[in-house]
């Protein structure tokens, strides 16, 4: 397993977004960690998205795992951050998508499928959700 990118975006001295992209064989594992509390979702993200796209272009990847298990909170402006990142990856990698999410978290159960655009048949067909219970 290799780490491809580590995203720790700061705003006003506070970490507003933290993520790790790792590769395991031909599988990309993208983890969202901590809390996303962001005021302007577009300001900080552009550079990270550009860098991520460049990195992914150099890799041979045929499946994706999004891991939200360690994401404890996401404010509503943070939704756009998740959409921008996941859309880039989903468009770039045409393969199965596994989404690990918390079973008892309203936003991960109710809103996350909207952010991942799973009502698009093409995306829905290749997406599997795995619900994780916290101990």
């Amino acid at each position, binding site marked *: 397993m290799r780490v491809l990118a580590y995203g720790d975006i700061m705003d006003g001295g506070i970490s507003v977004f933290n993520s790790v992209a790792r590769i395991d064989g031909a599988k990309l594992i993208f983890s969202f960690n901590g809390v996303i*509390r962001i005021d302007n979702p577009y300001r900080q993200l552009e550079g990270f998205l550009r860098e991520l796209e460049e990195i992914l272009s150099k890799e041979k990847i045929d499946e994706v795992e999004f891991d939200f298990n360690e994401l404890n909170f996401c404010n*509503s402006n943070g939704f756009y951050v998740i959409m921008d990142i996941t859309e880039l990856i989903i468009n770039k990698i045409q393969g199965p998508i596994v989404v690990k999410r918390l079973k008892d978290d*309203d936003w991960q159960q*109710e809103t996350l499928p909207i*952010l991942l655009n799973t009502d698009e048949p093409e995306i829905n067909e290749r997406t599997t959700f795995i619900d994780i219970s916290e101990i």
Partner: protein
Amino acid sequence: MITEEDLAKTRISMRYDFSPIRNIIGDLSGLTGHFCEELIGSFYAKNISRKANIVVTELLNNAIKNNVDGDSNIVVEVEINEERLLIRVKNVVHKEQFEKVKAYVDMINSSKDKKKLLADTIRRRRKVRLKGGLGLIRLVAENKFRISVDYGSPFLIVESQFLLGGLR
């Protein structure tokens, strides 16, 4: 021995009154929401305490962003017992702002498919790179709260209530 069931009958009430608003320079909504989650989570299940964090964060953030009088105050009230979780946020607004918020809340409450309304709103706002505008609808569509608004001049009062029946 105190069981989880006993703990989930604990009555808690909190009231914060912040003034003047102009002095709020840090992430007050995040701090207050997180504290409410931690405190409520000491007694109630995680899925309930998380709801408190989301609602306090979104409502307090709205109140701070839309403040019209830096000298005024914002009041946050949180009450939980075995029946319900209630969160009320009051802040000073112009009457026209209240009318606008009321029309928006009425629209949310009258929507037959609130999840679709949330999805459509997210996509529409993202397309034109707008930020914000999702807090209230999120509370209803995602967190299953009932929301209502009132005006006690000069205060806008937004109240969110979640009935705990079956979730303890």
